[in-house]
């Protein structure tokens, strides 16, 4: 079975979070499933479209689903939770609203892709790769304490996404456990990091990420695992600024779950993009033996 790949703007090559995309690709080459980029995909509109123009947001998202359907993908992987959330919500919106569906079809000049299943990265790993990972695991990071940070978009709105518990999700924790590291029990798994305000209201982001980082450190975490480019950008890139404003130095590596899986499969840290982070990830890389 082949799975359509919708990287989205943030993690495609030459973008701010390209290491997420790189590591997802590398991992899939080892443990599957086969993922193929959907030809000519476009931006889902992300927060800016849905925050200001519902119809535009829906049309931009649904165009990608329609493309996926055109190229006969039954399931697509959207590793960026902003994208997967937007795609799933838009799919539901056109299903529930006949008038909107017609308008969208008129705009995208294609029938709405209603049958494609959109999966986030954790779902793909849990549904297809756990056995493979168990077989091919080369290194483990025993004792590496990881705070799994899910953020907002993977779990909310729960009734639409239908993925894991919105208050205390476990999927990433299970994956972390499966690759031999130790998930910590902490309280900020699904707290908001400020998301798209990273440029426009950096002050908000800095405050929220400070709380999250503090929670992780207090729970004894050596690193925070994420599955979202926005969470990553805010937690990783803004630590310097927090240092300045809150006089608190965390220096805690923020790694993608795909990077952790890659390390446990014995893949090189450069290929996984671990050199592209703002906070040095050496402590995580070195924890693998």
């Amino acid at each position: 079975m082949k799975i359509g790949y919708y990287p989205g703007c943030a993690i495609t090559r030459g973008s701010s979070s390209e290491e997420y995309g790189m590591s997802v690709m590398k991992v899939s080459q080892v443990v599957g499933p086969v993922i193929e980029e959907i030809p000519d995909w476009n931006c889902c509109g992300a927060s800016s479209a849905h925050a200001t123009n519902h119809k535009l947001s829906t049309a931009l998202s649904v165009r990608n689903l329609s493309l996926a359907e055109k190229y006969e993908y039954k399931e697509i992987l959207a590793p960026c939770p902003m994208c997967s959330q937007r795609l799933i919500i838009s799919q539901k919106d056109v299903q529930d609203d006949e008038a909107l569906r017609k308008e969208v079809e008129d705009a995208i000049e294609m029938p709405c892709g209603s049958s494609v299943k959109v999966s986030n990265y954790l779902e793909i790993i849990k549904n297809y790769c756990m056995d493979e990972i168990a077989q091919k695991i080369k290194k483990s990071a025993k004792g590496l304490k990881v705070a799994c940070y899910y953020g907002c978009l993977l779990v909310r709105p729960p009734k639409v996404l239908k993925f894991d518990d919105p208050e205390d999700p476990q999927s990433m924790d299970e994956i972390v456990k499966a690759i031999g590291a130790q998930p910590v029990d902490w309280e900020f798994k699904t707290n908001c990091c400020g998301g798209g305000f990273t440029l426009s209201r950096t002050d908000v982001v800095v405050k929220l990420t400070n709380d999250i980082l503090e929670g992780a450190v207090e729970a004894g975490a050596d690193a925070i695992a994420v599955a979202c480019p926005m969470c990553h950008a805010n937690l990783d890139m803004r630590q310097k600024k927090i240092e300045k404003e809150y006089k608190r130095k965390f220096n805690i590596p923020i790694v993608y779950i795909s990077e952790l899986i890659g390390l446990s499969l014995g893949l090189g840290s450069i290929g996984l993009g671990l050199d592209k982070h703002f906070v040095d990830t050496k402590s995580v890389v070195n924890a693998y033996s």
Partner: protein
Amino acid sequence: MKIKINLSERSSDFAKEVEKRSGIKVKECYQCGKCTAGCPVAYEMDYMPNQIIRLVQIGARREALTSRTIWLCASCITCSTRCPKEVKIAELMDVLREMALEENLANPLEKNITAFHESFLNSVKKHGRISEVWMLNEYKMKRPKTALQDLVVAPQMIGKGKLSFLPHNIKGKDAISRIFKKCKPK
């Protein structure tokens, strides 16, 4: 603040208008305040989330649409997730933002946020995907005061090969611009 209610202004229909537009049942909110209690950005807001709903409920149209709150909402959906009455509060913020833009009521104090959205969407419109460098460029032009803000971070990103100057054009970018045209707000 004083809210005037009389027959000629018919302001109490605002909740209905919102419901008609979005399907969100604003009247079902019984003002327990759980949305406010859990909102990560509420501390910055001029009206608490529950007050925004209240403004809609009692028909204070202008107050709701000109609030800073609607722009400060980070769309984290914590409020809707925990709402005992399942009122879609985060989604309500989307609708109010859309209405505020349509009526030119967006609060100028949150211009950073609206300018960001504009720059973002312009990039999508032009290329089909986001080209971060060019989007940033446009945003900084629009909001010169923020120009210095990320002077440390951006070059580092470029250094790590994470920001490309090549625009991410897609083949179907004409189709995308047609989508923009057809979805243009009234």
